[in-house]
């Protein structure tokens, strides 16, 4: 594996305009406006943060994993990655990353896929797509805008390690993240962010111990041409 590039952010937590802790198994839905920065911090280490993004003005225009990886000709997300939408807009850019790489092919766990992947009697176990749906439906009820199962598409798994091999195999490996590592993104347009802090207990994506993450937001800096 090539050396991962670590890029720290100059922004200080005390200057953030918003900060929240999202516990494992919870969802979090929030708008990130053009020019704002959003940071997700892996507070205790090896925690997968399943995340969807939408054009805040048109949810049909949403994060596209295939367009993002094809545009940069690389399947891993890190500093410099532009998150592309299905209508080929750049939604956000990763501007800092102290973890080094993030997955966008592993998808989000679901009670139904857990039955396939582990055992049919695992249906009762909490899963990301339960959280996604809960968050989406609550947002829809609050805003009166449509957001439901049809909008839950391929997501990003921040801090998750899903290597693909040249022979075409895909595996879930122990995380490459650690306590305090973070990823920071600048919104290139007004976006809606939907997070599920992953509750998965059946594989090493959370080191079998799902833990809280924090989300911080900063306003646009003056030098950024909004």
């Amino acid at each position, binding site marked *: *594996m*090539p050396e991962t590039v670590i890029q720290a952010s100059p922004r200080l937590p005390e200057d953030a305009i918003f900060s929240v802790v999202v516990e494992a198994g919870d969802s979090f839905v929030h708008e990130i406006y053009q020019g704002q920065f959003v940071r997700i911090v892996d507070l205790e280490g090896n925690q997968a943060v399943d995340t969807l993004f939408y054009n805040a003005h048109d*949810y*049909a*225009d949403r994060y*596209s*994993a*295939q*367009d993002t*990886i*094809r545009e940069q*000709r*690389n*399947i*891993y997300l890190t500093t410099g990655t532009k998150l592309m939408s*299905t*209508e*080929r807009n750049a939604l956000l850019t990763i501007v800092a990353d102290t973890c080094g*790489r993030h997955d966008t*092919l*592993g*998808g*989000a766990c*679901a009670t*139904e*896929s857990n*039955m*396939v*992947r582990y*055992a*049919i009697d695992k249906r009762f176990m909490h899963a990301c*797509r339960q959280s996604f749906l809960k968050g989406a439906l609550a947002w829809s009820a609050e805003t009166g805008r449509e957001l439901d*199962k*049809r*909008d*839950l*598409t*391929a997501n990003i798994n921040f801090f998750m390690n*899903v290597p*693909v*091999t*040249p022979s*075409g*195999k*895909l*595996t*879930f490996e122990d995380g490459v993240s650690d306590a305090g590592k973070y990823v920071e993104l600048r919104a290139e347009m007004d976006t809606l962010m939907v997070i599920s802090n992953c509750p998965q207990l059946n594989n090493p994506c959370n080191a079998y111990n799902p833990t809280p993450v924090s989300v911080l937001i900063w306003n646009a800096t003056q030098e950024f041409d909004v």
Partner: protein
Amino acid sequence: MSSSILWEETLHGSSTWSHILKRGTALRIAAIEDNTNVGAIFLNADNPSERLNLPDTLKAQHIARLSTGSVLYSDMGRILCSITDDTLGWHDPLGGCSDAALVAKKYGSSTYQVARNNWHQNALDGFLIELAKYGLGPRDLMMNVNFFSKVEVFVDGSMHFISAHSAAGDAVELRAEMNTLVILNSCQHPMDPSHEYAQKPVSLTLKQVEAPGLDDVCRNFRPENGRGFTLTERYFL
């Protein structure tokens, strides 16, 4: 496995096709020329909110390519279609589809007014127009498969389109495990480095096939697929 042919037709190059492939039938797609590409998306025709989920498909089978034995999972833990036969060993689940801007940049624009049915088309618009015929829209679009194409991923994560992957006569066969709305588009792969706009037709063969037995190659490809078949069979009980 015994099967009987229902009908055969040709899908022209750079065009879109759709059909509700019924459980118990199969679709064989065969290349007529070298270096073909056929993009494909899949939805449960009886409930289109259930559709192909490529991340679930890849992680359930520990694969980043599709071939004989692989199945296409929906987001609901069920199998839409199985790949029961394949001469290539690798079909691409990563590259996505072309769009109008990409096609114009790579091949130049060519309108219908000037070029008639040789005009330059793109896969994204093809998928969206076809989805609309079933009352579906951009929210129903999903990550697509590219049959007959190969994108290799190096250890550093970089993606490399393999030119000259497929040849005339190569074929892939999909058996429907559910009533599946299959939408195909024969535009070139978006990572194809060729700057020559090419319309490559494929032949389509629709068949009646036997239900998958206990010794089925797809059912036994992975323990996960055994459970996937069980859950799919329960859906029809």
